[in-house]
């Protein structure tokens, strides 16, 4: 009996410890955003009084600053630019990475392994190493100060990752499936679209999520290549344009962050399982 009671106590203790940890982790992740959410609706005299409890509304909440964000700033333009850049980057990435990964993963290519490793290494050459010498290249293409410079440059990050990831997927699909389709009279292309591509959908989703969020998050290239307000994406537009000299529009800044962060987080969570399986599959089989 005492053994039973001890086991029970241990289990209850384990549950309490688990929920305590869940609470702690959730709090550390969420408190900054919660503070941002409260800030968004605070009136200036309330926000800028050091004696006020910052977590409460000491004066009635206001929508003024949210309205200012959408009507008084270029935030809408930043969001539009980000969407355009993200769509183009996703399209370029898929068009270039799928054939390359198919070639590396399913066709017998001489020195294929070496090419795969070389492509992986490219991912590890970060923007902070290339942005200085890329800026005259961008200028020569006539793209300085334009969002199209980002459309051209971001695939240098997304293509290597996507090729690496998709190669793993294509490798993991049984060859028999494709060969059977070809024996049954499909062309290689037909077999690819009917058998191989559908089986790689989790990998494709991972690529789309990665390429679009990278377009919204990348900072160095966006800061170095685009300085015109009308061309900026959210990651650089918000931190640089919602500030006048020393004056930060704190409520609008926090509102902008939440408006961008929450949809991205939702997409990530919807596809998290596929994203993880895509990532680990690429890692293991790449």
């Amino acid at each position: 009996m005492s053994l039973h009671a001890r086991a029970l106590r241990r289990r209850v203790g384990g549950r309490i410890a688990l929920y305590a940890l869940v609470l702690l982790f959730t709090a550390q992740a969420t408190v900054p955003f919660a503070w941002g959410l409260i800030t968004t609706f605070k009136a200036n005299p309330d926000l800028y009084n050091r004696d006020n409890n910052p977590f409460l509304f000491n004066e009635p909440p206001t929508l003024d600053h949210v309205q200012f964000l959408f009507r008084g700033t270029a935030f809408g333009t930043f969001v539009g630019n980000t969407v355009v850049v993200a769509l183009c980057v996703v399209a370029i990435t898929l068009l270039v990475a799928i054939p390359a990964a198919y070639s590396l993963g399913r066709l017998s290519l001489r020195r294929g392994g070496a090419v795969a490793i070389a492509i992986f290494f490219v991912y590890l050459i970060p923007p902070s190493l290339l942005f200085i010498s890329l800026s005259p290249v961008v200028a020569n293409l006539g793209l300085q100060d334009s969002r199209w410079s980002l459309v051209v440059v971001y695939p240098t990050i997304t293509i290597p990752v996507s090729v690496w990831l998709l190669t793993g997927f294509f490798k993991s699909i049984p060859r028999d499936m494709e060969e059977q389709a070809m024996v049954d009279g499909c062309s290689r292309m037909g077999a690819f679209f009917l058998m191989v591509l559908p089986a790689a959908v989790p990998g494709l989703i991972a690529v789309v999520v990665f390429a679009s969020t990278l377009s919204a998050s990348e900072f160095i290239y966006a800061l170095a290549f685009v300085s015109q307000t009308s061309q900026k994406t959210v990651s650089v537009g918000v931190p640089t344009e919602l500030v006048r000299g020393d004056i930060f529009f704190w409520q609008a800044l926090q509102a902008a962050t939440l408006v961008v962060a929450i949809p991205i987080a939702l997409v990530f969570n919807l596809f998290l399982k596929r994203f993880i399986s895509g990532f680990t599959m690429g890692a293991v089989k790449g």
Partner: protein
Amino acid sequence: MSAVEAEAPARPRRYLLERQGVLAPLLLAPAILYIFALVAVPFFLAIIYSLSDVTIGDPSIDLVGLDNFRAVLQDRVFRRSLRNSVVMTSATMLLVVVVARVLALVLTQNFRGKWLVRFLILLPWTTPVSLAAIVWLWMLDSLFSPIDWTLRYLGLIDGSLNWLGNPDLAPVSVVLVQVWRIVPLAAVIIMAGIVAIPDEIYDAARVDGAGFWRTQFEITNPLIMPVTAVAVLFGAVVVFADMSVPYVLTRGGPIDATQVLPTWAFFRGIQGGDLAQGAAIALFAFPVLAAMAIAILRAVRRMDIG
């Protein structure tokens, strides 16, 4: 897999296999060309820049040998940046591996409201870095920081800690923000490793009388070593190459206390217009990153076998 390959030539499709010699390079070509034009070319251009006297004002390239590297190495700010980059990345990853390991274990358990919890816990990682940094810029504000307010309320401090303005505290703040945003990524990767361990191993351990801590340290930890190494190295590459957190929070200050290689390369190369020295500074990151890349590949290989 090798069995399939050995078997393939025996099938009556020899003409297709012969065409693969054409098809395979053809499909690979666009990716190779793209990367060659926009990664390899700028990379070599960066090396040439670093050996020249090119500036934004005077774009003609005259080679000057290793002068830039010599000048950069004698520069106090550069040495500070290099040290900061190494120390801050190491500190970040040490904290990340411990916290992420615990979080990964928590996330593999069943509890109420898991979807919402997961959503909230991932927010720091899924939010674009520069915007997450803006949230922290406000959290750590010298006048209105709610952390300072709480500490004042509890009677622990007077005034404010000045998280970002104090040269001793600012690097700590930057490290904590990096840890905060990298932990979810590392935890998700480590979690995949924990989930992949077969239940039978745990059952056997339980039969042998191993308790919670022994199971964690003697069974789970060794088995997830390779995947943990991948998570840590990926995180290290991300943090080492990041300029957005220090740029948004401190602009490298106060008095270069949080200056890192990417921010210093940006201030020198783009804002200061000295492309040659900027390129030399940026290139110092390369050996470190290359070493980490090789380490990642090794870890991945081990993962493949295990």
